[in-house]
């Protein structure tokens, strides 16, 4: 996922407020106005800071939760049904995605069994199952792109269920 510069925005606002204060003149009348402006700016700055701090803490907390569950969701053989574990993990990502406007790429994969093009379609079905689950929780389809790699990019190269189960997956990127 692309990290939006939320903290960066707050810093820009702070800098603007400081710049306004520094620019206020020494003329009495103007300085009264300047003082008023500065006070207003100060209030705005404090409010911004508090909001930014709250939002960045919340953002960081959601991001941590999403990172903790990982970005890979696993499937049973020839199945595109989300497992309860996958749903739970996805929920953490959905909370985060609903707080921002990021786009995500869902890469669907299969194990080596069966034909390559059928697996290409199966990988897409898995990615779309994740997309549809996210849509059902309010993450709009236009923010999500499904790309299937079929059996082309295994994580485990060997044969046998221990490798195959690692390879039947959707990666959220």
């Amino acid at each position: 996922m692309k990290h939006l510069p939320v903290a960066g925005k707050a810093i820009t606002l702070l800098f603007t407020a400081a710049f306004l204060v520094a620019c206020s003149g020494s003329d009495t009348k103007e300085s009264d106005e300047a003082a008023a402006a500065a006070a207003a700016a100060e209030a705005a700055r404090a409010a911004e800071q508090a909001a930014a701090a709250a939002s960045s803490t919340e953002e960081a907390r959601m991001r941590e939760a999403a990172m903790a569950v990982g970005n890979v969701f696993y499937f049973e053989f020839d199945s595109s049904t989300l497992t309860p574990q996958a749903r739970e993990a996805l929920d953490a990502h959905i909370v985060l995605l609903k707080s921002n406007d990021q786009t995500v790429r869902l890469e669907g994969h299969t194990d080596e069994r069966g034909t390559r093009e059928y697996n290409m379609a199966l990988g897409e079905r898995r990615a779309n199952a994740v997309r549809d689950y996210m849509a059902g929780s309010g993450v709009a389809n236009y923010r999500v792109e499904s790309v299937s790699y079929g059996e082309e990019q295994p994580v485990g190269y060997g044969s046998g269920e221990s490798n195959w189960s690692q390879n039947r997956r959707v990666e959220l990127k």
Partner: protein
Amino acid sequence: MKTVALALFNVVLLVVSLGAKAELVIEITQGVDDPTAIAVVPFAWQGSGTAPEDISVVVQSDLERSGQFAPVDRRDMLGFPSTQKDIFYRDWRAIETEYVLIGRVSSTDQMRIEYELFDVLRQASVYKGVEQGSPNEARMLAHRVSDRVYEALTGIRGAFATRLLYVAVTRVPQGKDHYRLTLADSDGARPIVLLESREPVLAPAWSPDGKHIAYVSFETTRPAIYRQNLLTGAREQLTNFRGLNGAPAWSPDGRTMAMVLSKDGSPDIYLMDLASKRLTRVTRHYAIDTEPTWMPDGKSLLFTSDRGGRPQIYRYDLASGQSNRLTYEGAYNARARVAQDGRNVVMVHQKSGRFHIALLDLVTDRLQILTSTELDESPSIAPNGSMLLYATKFQGRGILAAVSVDGGVKFRLPARDGDVREPAWSPYMSR
């Protein structure tokens, strides 16, 4: 713009010959029970210097690879005749030779191979021929000799003077695998890398005239179908749709390409008119419809669909627009390819959890399992319908393997390094 830069970085178009040395090694594992004993006598070289290629070695290994012949070892030959008058039939009878092939090779601007096949028992000429061409094509000329000899003795047109496309993959631990779309002679010799990429390359397919190929490349980080002219190297991206862009299959008249797109929701079969690029949707089903392939008459398509719950082969009739299920035996039948006779259909078939190549006879409706390996896929039939190539795993590596349509002849074609997969046997090449 990022995509363009990536594409340039990720893919290298090449027409670089790797030399005559084959990337693939041939290991014959099973032949017919009573192969025909044939002596391919070293052809007499009548040019200056040394011969650029040992024609008779190429012919001998072609015949041996068919599994139907047992070539006589050169060291057992009592003489190397190159004309009819030098053939002493009793010498050949003594070493139980049934047929003798002799020849003479000369080369100036053109290479010329004159050859004649004799029946030892009848003491008579069976076939006599001449092949001519560029000395650079010496091996292809030798394969044409094999084609003629094979046809004279079996009644079936030879398919040695054909080519293969395959995908070679070098694994890069902790990194992106290295894909090479490769073109080689039917015996694996003279490999040429057509495309190199760090993103997946798959589904190579031939145009019916053997002059163009199509494939799927992920070089833009999404799948797209490309068409490439083998002579000029000119390359064209045919599709760029959201979702799947896969399984290109040329129609027998070369004008239309069947493909799989999921742009309208689920994977369906579409036809692209190659002149206008206009698309026609063929299947409309929420299930997976994929892996289209044409019947030789161009009137119907076979495809894989899981509309019945599990992947099975269906036939779509272009005139009526109706799809009918063809396979009922087994829970997984996919990626059909049809022999030129329109009768033999090969496919991936699952039995007891293993994936084999099976042959369905459309006349008798009988399904026969041809292979005993267990992760078999991507069958591709020779243009004469006698053998098929497929991909499998052997000792942990992806290799190509071949089996005759009666299951009697088998050989393996592992790569010297890395994995090889997705063989596509060319049509007959126009001269």
